[in-house]
């Protein structure tokens, strides 16, 4: 069932992406998705660090942002978007698209697991932050190249 859901989401996202490529800028879009992910991690991390009060709604919404952010995310890297727009995408993405997709799926699955058991307390925030957060660096390790220092 879970697998079917992933497949269905991917198909929907793919179809959607194909239709809108002409109208949108994939580089700007994928950067905006990453910004969004950053804000979601910030929401969880601030609660985990005690800098913000625990808020179940915000925490569960943050988890959903990772799920929606990773849906069809890899389709934002079509051929021809290797450079330009201050992209920090590594050339390795296009050399190993399957590996890149696997990293994206890892984030989606971590988010899905956190959605299956909604966050109810601070320990839940920490667990979700750990599980999802690991998949951020897991992908950046290979597929992102920092250029601005």
């Amino acid at each position, binding site marked *: 069932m879970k697998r079917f859901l992933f497949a269905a989401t991917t198909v929907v996202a793919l179809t959607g992406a194909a239709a809108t490529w002409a109208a949108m800028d994939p580089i700007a879009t994928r950067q905006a998705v990453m910004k969004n992910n950053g804000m979601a991690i*910030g929401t969880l991390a601030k609660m985990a660090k005690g800098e913000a009060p625990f808020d179940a709604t915000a925490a569960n919404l943050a988890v959903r942002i990772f799920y929606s952010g990773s849906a069809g995310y890899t389709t934002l890297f079509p051929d021809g978007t290797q450079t330009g727009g201050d992209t920090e995408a*590594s050339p390795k993405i296009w050399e190993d698209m399957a590996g890149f997709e696997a990293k994206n799926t890892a984030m989606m699955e971590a988010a899905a697991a956190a959605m299956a058991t909604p966050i109810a307390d601070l320990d839940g925030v920490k667990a979700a*932050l750990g599980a999802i957060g690991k998949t951020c*660096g897991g*992908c950046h*390790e290979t*597929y992102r*190249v*920092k250029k601005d*220092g």
Partner: protein
Amino acid sequence: MIKRLILTLLALALVGAGVFWLVTAPQTLSETDLPDHAPDLANGEYMFYAGGCASCHATPGSDDKLALGGGLKLGSPFGDFFVPNISPDAEDGIGGWSTLDLVNAMVKGVSPNGSHYYPAFPYTSYQRMKLEDIIDLKAFLDTLEPVKSDVPPHDLPFPFNIRRTLGGWKFLYLDGKPFEPDPDASDQINRGAYLVTGPGHCGECHTPRDALGGLERDKWLTGAPSTEGEGTVPGITADTLEGWTAADIAYALESGFTPDFDSLGSSMAAVVRNTAHLTPEDRDAIAAYLESVHGQ
């Protein structure tokens, strides 16, 4: 007249060769240089993470970061290096090594058979380590599983493939000095300085290198182009980490997240897997030290 000139030139060449031979001869410590120290296994494991050994030596693609089969390719402007196996396997790894062998490798950059290691192995930093910490690390490495592996030789063009020339490189860049605490700095900053400059070998990537590949120490930790290919390695001094508090630095070393919740990538992802094993006090010490370093 001509004969005298030729003789003089020959004599000079001979002296030159002699100097080259002396300067480039690998220098090592002997058994009597080692302190009398009973190995502390727990500290050895801690040094394994502080030293980031697995970042390079773990078998690429393996989830087991304690399988130290080597084989990772490290690109550089001088050619490609292939990281050796440092598991306790007697044939493919360092199973037959004595404690002194590991000390000489890490502090002098010399292998048990007396040849120079390339400084892709960061002995320019490890030379600052306390010998006790290396003795402990050896004891920990001995407890790991032996791994078989077939690591290719380094792929380096002439003249970089002549190991003896590294003696000249070391003459320029390996000063042989242990870590010296700054008497004017706090214990916390000195602990951080030790971790950063010694085992942590942060300067190897975060400090720029000159044309011969030596660290430009007057630009300590101010950031550098990546030696492995595209991109840049950011500066980590107080001036280059503008807007970061010490707590931000410590949190990034624990979680991998920057103050604006970007996630550290490239080789820093592996570094964070190591620094996450350090005590909160040591991450705070590293942060306090970095906040005390200036330059951009």
